[in-house]
């Protein structure tokens, strides 16, 4: 591997070096967390309003 390529690979994050199906599961997990976060904000407003 050339020095340029090694440097380039070193800059890649762990996520981008996962196989495609694992990366998709990761994105799905993030989307689920964002949706659940919105649900939590929606529900917790009850406490804020009470």
């Amino acid at each position: 591997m050339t020095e340029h390529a090694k440097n380039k690979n070193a800059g890649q994050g762990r996520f981008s070096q996962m196989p495609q199906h694992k990366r998709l599961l990761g994105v799905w997990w993030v989307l689920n967390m964002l949706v659940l976060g919105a649900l939590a904000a929606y529900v917790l407003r009850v406490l804020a309003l009470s």
Partner: protein
Amino acid sequence: MNGIALSGLYLFVVLIPLGLAMAGMREPRGFWDEAASGMGMLAFAILLAEFLLSGRFKAMSGGVGMDITMRFHQLLARSCLVLAILHPFFYQTPFGRALPYDPTRQLTLAEPGLALATGAAAWVLLPAFVLLSLARDKVFKTYEGWRWTHGLGAALIAFLAWHHTVYAGRYAQDPALAAVWTGLLAIALASLLSVYLVRPLLQRARPWRVASVEKVADRTWEAVLKPEGHKGLEFRAGQFGWINMGHSPFSLAENPFSIASAPAESGVLRFIIKELGDFTNTIGNVPPGTIAYVDGPFGNLTIDGIKATGHALIAGGVGIAPMLSILRQLEAERDDRPVIVVYGNRIADQIVAGAELRSLCSKDNRHLVQCLSEPPEGWAGETGMLDGALVRRVFGSTPDPDWLYILCGPPAMMSGVEVALIGLGVPSDRILLERFTYD
């Protein structure tokens, strides 16, 4: 649309009902009741978003690839199912008539009636629908039967859930939110109409004719289609199309196949089709002259527009079809970048276009590696499975990360080769593959 934009659109569609409910400033019910309402709204919004991820909409899948949008369609169905199943269990407030001093129904849930019955029906049908989808290969004898059931079943569940949401949902009593639900349902149903009605109409105006169907290897055929009264299909090497041979364009009797011909071969489309059940087992009986319809092109297994100093085409079995397209196009363009073709099969009789591959790879900077897991006596090529070990033998311990590695074949083969390439330091964005089977 790229992945980030698609994710943003998904979140926007899914969260807008929840946002409108919050903005409505309606006095909330208790904590658990609000959790139940929120889950119900999210489940229904995800269900509606699923329609757009399932269709053949290039605006949705063009950037990330249809295999990716289809995988998200499958994964998000699970998210939807969990939220939908939990939704009714969190309610604490009793059912009952609206009280005169409680016009916003803070103190009672909807009266038992049609709106609850439709919700219950959707609640029962949705898990059955998801299970049916997961077991589709065992349950359905034909791809056509599966598609009709999936499309009509999804429309029925969406309509039942819409009725329940709009007529039993407390927050949907706000006209703005009710309009959003109805608008999203309309978009979802329009996407079905587009696939089941509009696309067939467009295909009917652009028919094709089967020029020949010839056996090219063991249980493997090459079908050649010629355009009938039009210029043909503009596509990029490596893409695929849904092909319907001998049926009405409205029949849904169509199957996806990779295009094996090069875009440079004007007009003609060649497909390599292996007998794998359903329609493909009858491909040898399709007579020349049969009318056919092509929906496409689709797919991102293409080297166009991606900088690379060389190309590795790694195919297992009938996965050679898109590689032939790419190789034929490189030859037509007199592309002098190096190419390594790695082609795996079980037996020698399964090798497709062996002589052409040897001819195309006879140049100095091209190399053909053939691999058989059950080689005949005197076989001079590689033996064993097309796996990580073969990848290491072919590309060494330091594959060039500036090449493009294009994979097509059985899911296990693609996974093994992908993991091996990444392990050898190839950046994942230099590996192209399309995988449609996960579950």
